[in-house]
C-alpha cells in the first residue's frame, strides 16, 4: 500500500480508499463488528492525502482520534487497519489499540492519540531526533481546531520554533470541536498563533487535495532544508457525526443547510473532476475490491487470546502482577 501519491489519479484513489473505508467501518459499527464506535473522517480526506503526498516514505506522522484517514494516507494496509478496528490479532496494533490508537511504525505512523493535542509534542520529539541524526526526515502532526486550545500543543509550537525542528503542524479546521464552533473556542486563529512563535503559517482550502499538497510540499521542503517548522491550517468539514454515538443522541449544533453546502464541495468530486470519468470509475472499482478483501480479511482473522491481555505492557518483558492473587 505504499504506492506513491504522485498523479491526480493517485490522489483521488487514496481519498476514495479512505472514503470507502470509512463507509465500510460505519457499516461494521452498526453491525456491531466494530465495538466502541469511530470518529469518521468523511469529508476531510483531502487533508490527510494532500499532506501525505508531500511526505517521503521514511517521513513520520502522528495522528488523532479521527485518525483513519491519516493512517491510510500514509500507507497502511487497509486490511490490517480494518482488522484493528474489529479488534483482531492481525490488526496493526494486534487488536490492542483500536480506532483511536492505530500505529504502524513500519510506514512511519508513530500512532494516533486519543487525547486532543497530545501528539504534537511527540512529533516534536521525533523531529528533534531526526534533526540530531541528520536523517532528513520530516514529521507531520495532525490536530483539530479544538487542539489549538491545548496548552501542550502551544508549548510544542514554542519548542519547534526555538530549535527550528523539521515538523509540520497540520490543523484540520473542520469548524467544530465536537459541538463547539471554532470561533467560540479559539480566540484569534491558527495562523496567528503559529506566527506568534515565529512559525510560518498559511490557511488553505482543505477540500482541494492539490492545494493542500502544494502547501505541504513547500513546508516539507523548507523543513528538509533545515529552515524549521511550519503550520498549515486546512479549512475542511466533517460530513458526518463527531462520533458514531451521535447517531444515538440528537444534537443541533449545526444546520442541515451548512452540511449541504459543504457537501457540495466534496473533496472526492473536486479531485474526481480532474481525472477522466472512465478512470475514476475504474479506480472506484479497484478500491471496492480492496475493501471487500479488507472486510474478508478482518472478519476472518482470529480474535486475541484473553490470556495475552497483558502482553506488551512492558517493552522490557516484565510481567505485571495480576488482579487476583
Amino acid at each position, binding site marked *: 500500500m505504499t504506492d506513491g501519491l504522485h498523479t491526480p489519479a493517485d490522489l483521488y484513489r487514496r481519498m476514495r480508499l479512505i472514503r470507502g473505508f470509512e463507509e465500510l467501518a460505519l457499516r461494521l459499527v452498526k453491525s456491531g463488528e466494530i465495538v466502541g464506535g469511530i470518529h469518521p473522517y468523511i469529508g476531510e480526506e483531502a487533508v490527510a492525502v494532500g499532506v501525505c503526498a508531500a511526505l517521503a516514505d521514511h517521513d513520520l506522522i502522528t495522528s488523532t482520534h479521527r485518525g483513519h484517514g491519516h493512517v491510510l494516507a500514509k500507507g497502511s494496509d487497509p486490511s490490517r487497519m480494518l482488522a484493528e478496528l474489529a*479488534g*483482531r490479532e492481525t490488526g496493526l496494533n494486534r487488536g*490492542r489499540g483500536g480506532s483511536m490508537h492505530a500505529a504502524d511504525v513500519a510506514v512511519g505512523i508513530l500512532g494516533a*492519540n486519543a*487525547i486532543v493535542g497530545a501528539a504534537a509534542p511527540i512529533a516534536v520529539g521525533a523531529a528533534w531526533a531526526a534533526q540530531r541524526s541528520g536523517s532528513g526526515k520530516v514529521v507531520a502532526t495532525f490536530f483539530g481546531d479544538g487542539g489549538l486550545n491545548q496548552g501542550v500543543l502551544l508549548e510544542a509550537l514554542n519548542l519547534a520554533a526555538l530549535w527550528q525542528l523539521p515538523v509540520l503542524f497540520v490543523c484540520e479546521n473542520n469548524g467544530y470541536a465536537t459541538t463547539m464552533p471554532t470561533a467560540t473556542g479559539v480566540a484569534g486563529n491558527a495562523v496567528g498563533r503559529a506566527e506568534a512563535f515565529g512559525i510560518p503559517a498559511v490557511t488553505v482550502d482543505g477540500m482541494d487535495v492539490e492545494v493542500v499538497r502544494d502547501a505541504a510540499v513547500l513546508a516539507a521542503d523548507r523543513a528538509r532544508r533545515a529552515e524549521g517548522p511550519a503550520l498549515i491550517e486546512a479549512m475542511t468539514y466533517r460530513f458526518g457525526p463527531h462520533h458514531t454515538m451521535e447517531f444515538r*443522541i440528537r444534537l443541533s449544533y449545526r444546520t442541515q443547510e451548512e452540511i449541504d453546502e459543504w457537501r457540495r464541495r466534496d473533496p472526492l468530486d473536486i479531485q474526481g473532476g480532474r481525472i477522466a470519468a472512465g478512470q475514476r470509475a475504474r479506480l472506484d472499482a479497484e478500491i471496492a475490491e480492496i475493501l471487500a478483501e479488507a472486510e474478508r480479511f478482518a472478519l476472518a482473522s482470529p480474535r486475541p487470546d484473553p490470556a495475552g491481555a497483558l502482553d506488551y*505492557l512492558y517493552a522490557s518483558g516484565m510481567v*505485571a502482577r495480576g*488482579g487476583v492473587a
Partner: protein
Amino acid sequence: MTKLSYTKALNRALGDELERDPAVCVLGEDIGAGIAQLTLGLLDRFGPDRVVDTPLSEQAFTSMATGAALCGLRPVIEFQIPSLLFLTFEQIANQAHKMSLMTGGQVSVPVTYVVPGSGSREGWAGQHSDHPYSLFAHVGVKTVVPATPVDAYGLLVSAIRDADPVVVFAPAGAMGIRDDVDASMLAPVPLGQARIHRAGSDVTVVAVGHLVHTALAVAAELAGEISVEVFDPRTVYPFDWAALAESVGKTGRLVVIDDSNRTCGFAGEVLATVAEEMRLIAPPKRVTRPDGAVLPFALELDRAIQPGREQLVAAVRTVMK
C-alpha cells in the same frame, strides 16, 4: 415510585443545586448540548452564564474554577474522559487541594469534578478506560464513587455543597442502573458514610460503583451457601472505617473488589487498615485490575483485565476455606 436512572439522577442533582444556590455553575465541554447526558436541559433552564461550554483547555478551566471558587462561586466541572484527571492533576492536587492549608485557612475551594463514564467503556481502549479514584484518595482529595441512582443524587449534592474539592466518579458500568424512587429518597448523602446494601454474616465484600452490583449478584448467587455482606463505602476518601470495623467484626472475613490497579489501590488500603486495626479469622483477598493495567481495545482483552464476578466468587470461596 418512579424509575430514576443513574444518569438522570446526576442531571437532577445538578439542576436542583443550580436552582437552590445561585453560586453554583457548571463548566465543561459540550455541556450545553449535554453530550454526556448529565447536563441535558440545563443550558435552557439556567442560561450560558451558569452552564458554560468551555474550549478544550482543561487545565486552564480547572484552575479557573478554583479562582472562581476563591471568589464565592461553587463550580462543577464535567470531564468527558477519566484521563482528563491526569491532565489536570496539577490543578486539582497541587492547587485546589492545597489552598486551604497553605493560606492558613483564609480560603476554601468548593469545586466539584464529575466524570461520567469512568472506567472501561467498551471499545474506547487505553486512554479512555481509566478509573483513577485511588489516585485522588491518595492525595487526599475527597473521592466519591456512587453505585446507585439515589446515591448518585445524594452524593453529588453533598459534593457540591462541600467546602472542599470533591471528585465524583460515575462509572460507565453503573450509568445504566435504575432505581425505584420517590421524592423523599432524593436527599443529600453525607460524604464518608458507608451503606450496607445487603447484610450477611460470613464475609464482608467491599465494593464501590458498578462493582457493588457485581458484589450483590455474587451475594445472591452464593446465598444459602455463604452469607455475604455487601459493604459500599460510597466515598473512597474519606472512608467510613468505623462502619467497616463493625462489619468485619461481625463477619471476620474480607474480600475487596476494586476497579483500580492493584498496587497502591483502594483495595490495598482497605486490606492494610484492616490488617493494622481489625481482626480477621482468615486472610483477606482482593480482586483488582492488574498492576500497571492499560486496557487493550479488543473486548476479550479488556474484559480479561477487569475485576469480575467469577473472580469475586472464587475469592469469597477462598476466604471461607
